[in-house]
């Protein structure tokens, strides 16, 4: 992932290295200007959009840009298969033969169970399907009422789960629900 300098304001543009997808070391990163390192408050310069937000949180030495990049790197490394493959089997020749026999036997057991389970599920599914088809032929009204599903909505997505300590950003006056936002955009 190559992160370009161009979206940074000129006074913050400094030498950055390439960012590798395998999550390797984040080389030199942008160092922001002097900031007060008091634990209570940190001026978090969000230079990308130019707005300043005063947030209560841990001190950040590298600044917001570096943290964002590191987060991206972490997320990418979670997705990629690097260093997450199973280990190569290292065994003596005789042990390998024994392993092969045991492995094949176990795979056979697993395969039998899997095939049996699949067949069972298939039978159940087709029984249900044929029953529904027959119901549809018998009565459309009964079929449709049988196909109704209960609403899966329980709580709104935006509701906050209560936590022990308060959030970093306590109140966002500018937040609008997605529905409201859409309506606002449509009328504006």
């Amino acid at each position, binding site marked *: 992932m190559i992160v370009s300098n161009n979206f940074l304001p000129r006074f913050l543009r400094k030498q950055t290295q390439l960012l590798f997808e395998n999550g390797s070391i984040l080389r030199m990163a942008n160092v922001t200007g002097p900031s007060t390192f008091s634990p209570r408050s940190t001026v978090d310069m969000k230079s990308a959009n130019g707005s300043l937000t005063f947030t209560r949180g841990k001190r950040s030495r590298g600044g917001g840009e570096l943290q964002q990049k590191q987060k991206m790197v972490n997320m990418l490394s979670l997705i990629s298969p690097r260093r997450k493959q199973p280990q190569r089997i290292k065994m003596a*020749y005789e042990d390998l033969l024994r392993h092969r*026999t045991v492995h*094949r*036997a176990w795979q056979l057991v697993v395969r039998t169970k899997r095939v049996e389970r699949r067949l069972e599920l298939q039978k159940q599914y087709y029984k249900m399907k044929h029953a529904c088809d027959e119901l549809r032929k018998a009565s459309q009204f009964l079929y449709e009422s049988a196909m109704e599903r209960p609403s899966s909505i329980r709580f709104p997505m935006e509701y906050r789960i209560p936590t022990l300590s308060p959030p970093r950003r306590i109140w966002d006056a500018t937040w609008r629900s997605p529905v409201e936002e859409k309506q606002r955009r449509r009328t504006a």
Partner: protein
Amino acid sequence: MQDRDIPDQKSRADAYLASVEIEKLRINAEISNPEVIHQFNSGNFDMKFPVYRFLAQQRWEKNDRLLLMDRLENMKVIPDTMPTLYPRVDTKLRFPGRSTHWIDPGRIMSTGVTAQAPEFSIQIFEDAAKLYTIVIVDPDTPDIESDTYKTTLHYILADVRISGNEPLVDKATARELIPYLPPHPEKNSGYHRYAVWVFEQPDGERLAVQQRKGKDPVNVESLLERDRFDIRLFRSAHGLKAVGAHFWRNGYDSMTEGVREKFGLGPGNVYTHKRFQHYEDYRE
């Protein structure tokens, strides 16, 4: 039970499918046995058992077959000689000399080494013994009159008897239609590919031209012409089936003149070593 005893095509197909099923069962009966695997790995097994045939084929398919097809396609041996290949046998090739290893396909050899006729090994994965034909051609001989390349014939060995347990080609029992002509590439004509094609003879009979009904009669003399050889016509005229291939490469080197002298092949052309693509433009 011969296939020819069953007159009906459907019954023949059914019999074939049944035999395939039986072979599968025979393989499955033995394949889990570690003793069998050990015998295979240590090399003391008989190809009459379906398990070992299966394991040998599996081993070949995993690596050597892939390598062969990769080389044949990348070096464009496949469209330049025969149109394509569905490999059925494991073909191996080596030249007698000091260090006799089976060469990997497409290897650049010295003309001194290739002056001797090569040794072949054809590993089949079936029980029956069959007859095979080996043909060596060079598709890269310059044809100055037509400003293109032509195919030269270097070797034909027919009626090679091969069985599963005896893969090495025994030239004494075979019939050498065309004696071996050593590679003698001309200077600055680049690397020539020497393709070895292994054909299966129909019905295990001796190699003979099959005159087809309804098609033009084939001129037998013109088929085996060394200078301008048409391998596709050769294959179709004799009713052969391409089951294996291999190739090596030769370029003009320090031993080529010696080979020409020894075998009386004449001096050979020397082509210009082209340095620039459009030399004419540069000159002006």
